[in-house]
């Protein structure tokens, strides 16, 4: 199973690498580039959402901040793309650090609401200040080379995947994040500092997202508050991850591919029904949560642990205390 998985992965990577040599259609290449970008956005989102258990409804803000940072640095500070790009990631990471201090204290729905509100505030800010171009957005110098952007996206997302795979699935860090997700108070007793781990996770989620935003800006050559800082980036990341399987890397990647393929087909053939697309997206979240809580990936590759879960066993009766005067302890206090 493990070897077969590695083989499939190797074939997939090889196919992605040689694709532009075979496919010359610009539209197809463009769709593939964006598909790869969504894989990156989904896995980065899952670091904080799936592994750490903090559903960030403002993920799109990191993407937009990366995009605007590159736009502003290239167009107003005349920085070359390669100098600006890492700074897009750094800007997103710094915002994660600042936003994380108040929001990562919140739990569950409160964190989701707070991050959503913050991302709306950032969008409003971009609409109302001058150096972003306000609602008119910002145009970047065009560099029209579809192959270049395809490979840049592929390498960035592939590199992100590899680093996240190492940190989350191989190194202790991933298990520590899951401990925070499962029981923050209990994790403290085991020597884990939840504040520090959550912050590291949030930054690790923001950094590649900012870089992807930067590549997107240079690639599309035009950014505005609704395309890069709107709800759609966050919403789609949520759907991709929940549908694909939270707390894994392959799940969100699979979710990203399927949802993005669906979106592309939908917009190609049913572009008059944009509202319907959002309705379907919303329905898909609800259906995934109810019927496949582990997502597609989690359901397809059901964990050994669950398969081995024992049948319901009756709780042992509590032992009668030797001194009957001592009340039998209740579970809980």
């Amino acid at each position, binding site marked *: 199973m493990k070897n077969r998985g590695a083989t499939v992965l190797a074939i997939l990577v090889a196919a992605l690498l040689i694709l532009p040599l075979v496919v010359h259609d610009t539209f197809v290449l463009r769709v593939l580039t964006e598909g790869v970008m969504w894989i990156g956005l989904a896995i980065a989102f899952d670091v904080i959402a799936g592994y750490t258990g903090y559903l960030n409804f403002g993920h799109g803000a990191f993407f937009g901040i990366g995009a605007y940072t590159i736009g502003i640095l290239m167009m107003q500070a005349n920085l070359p793309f390669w100098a600006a790009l890492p700074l897009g990631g750094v800007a997103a990471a710094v915002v994660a650090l600042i936003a994380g201090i108040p929001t990562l204290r919140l739990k569950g729905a409160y964190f989701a609401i707070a991050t959503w509100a913050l991302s709306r505030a950032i969008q409003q800010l971009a609409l109302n200040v001058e150096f972003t171009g306000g609602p008119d957005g910002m145009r970047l110098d065009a560099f029209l080379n579809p192959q270049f952007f395809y490979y840049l996206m592929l390498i960035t997302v592939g590199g992100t995947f590899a680093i996240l795979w190492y940190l989350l699935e191989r190194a202790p860090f991933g298990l520590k994040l899951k401990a925070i997700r499962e029981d923050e108070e209990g994790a403290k*007793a085991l020597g884990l500092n939840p504040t520090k781990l959550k912050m590291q996770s949030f930054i690790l989620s923001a950094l590649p997202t900012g870089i992807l935003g930067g590549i997107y800006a240079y690639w599309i050559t035009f950014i505005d508050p609704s395309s890069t800082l709107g709800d759609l980036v966050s919403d789609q990341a949520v759907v991709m991850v929940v549908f694909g399987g939270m707390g894994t890397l392959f799940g969100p990647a699979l979710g990203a591919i399927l949802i993005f393929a669906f979106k592309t087909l939908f917009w190609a053939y049913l572009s008059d029904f944009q509202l319907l697309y959002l309705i379907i997206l919303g329905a898909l979240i609800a259906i995934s949560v109810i019927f496949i809580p582990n997502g597609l990936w989690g359901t397809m590759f059901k964990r050994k642990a669950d398969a081995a879960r024992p049948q319901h066993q009756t709780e042992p009766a509590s032992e009668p205390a*030797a001194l009957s005067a001592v009340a039998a*302890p209740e579970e809980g206090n």
Partner: protein
Amino acid sequence: MAEPILKVNSVTKCFGGLTAVDDVSFNVAKGEIVGLIGPNGAGKTTLFNVISGYYAPTKGNVIFEGNDISGKPPYHLAGVGIGRTFQVVKPFAGLTVLENVTIASFLKHPKKADAVRHAWQVLETTGLADRANVSAAGLTLAGRKRLEISKALALEPSFLLLDEVVAGLNPTEADRTVELIMKLKAQGLTILIVEHIMRVIMNISDRLVVLNFGKKIAEGTPSEVSSDPHVVQAYFGEEAA
């Protein structure tokens, strides 16, 4: 008495108007098993939470191995050698038993492979090795209590706080846990244990500290304490005294 590893000095913990722990002082010597007993709501778990860093004491302090640890966060105290279990068990339900214990092993074994190896050893000692790959949510109550002990032990602590790890088990399971506790004592671990089951607490404790309504009402060997009129009164009520 050997040198104390833990000193609880006049610790008071209030929740709003309620004084859950009221000016409690006692010492625990190295290698000792001290039982902390008292009726429901006496403040035993609250005192555990103060010692393990979950609450800062309202008054007083806690000295561990010569250092004032009052108000230090739990993750820091785990690092200096204090391991604890939770009365209301806290398994990482979505993870396997092995993963649960591996997370605790990271404290002393930062490399994952070492931590996993160490976790296996702990599971062998606590008798959970055959459940290693089961989801923690799938354990019985006895299993979950054992997992609590396993996680605390994986920290390789010098001082262990056990909060009702025997309560709720059937007699066979209870005996196994008692056996394990005695084995840990033999290895030199110092243990402070809360337990309602008298047969157990009287047998394993070197000394007992008795709380009632947050106050310490007695301290001494099990036989001294069980004949203390204050204790009898606390447990049996006015008429018996």
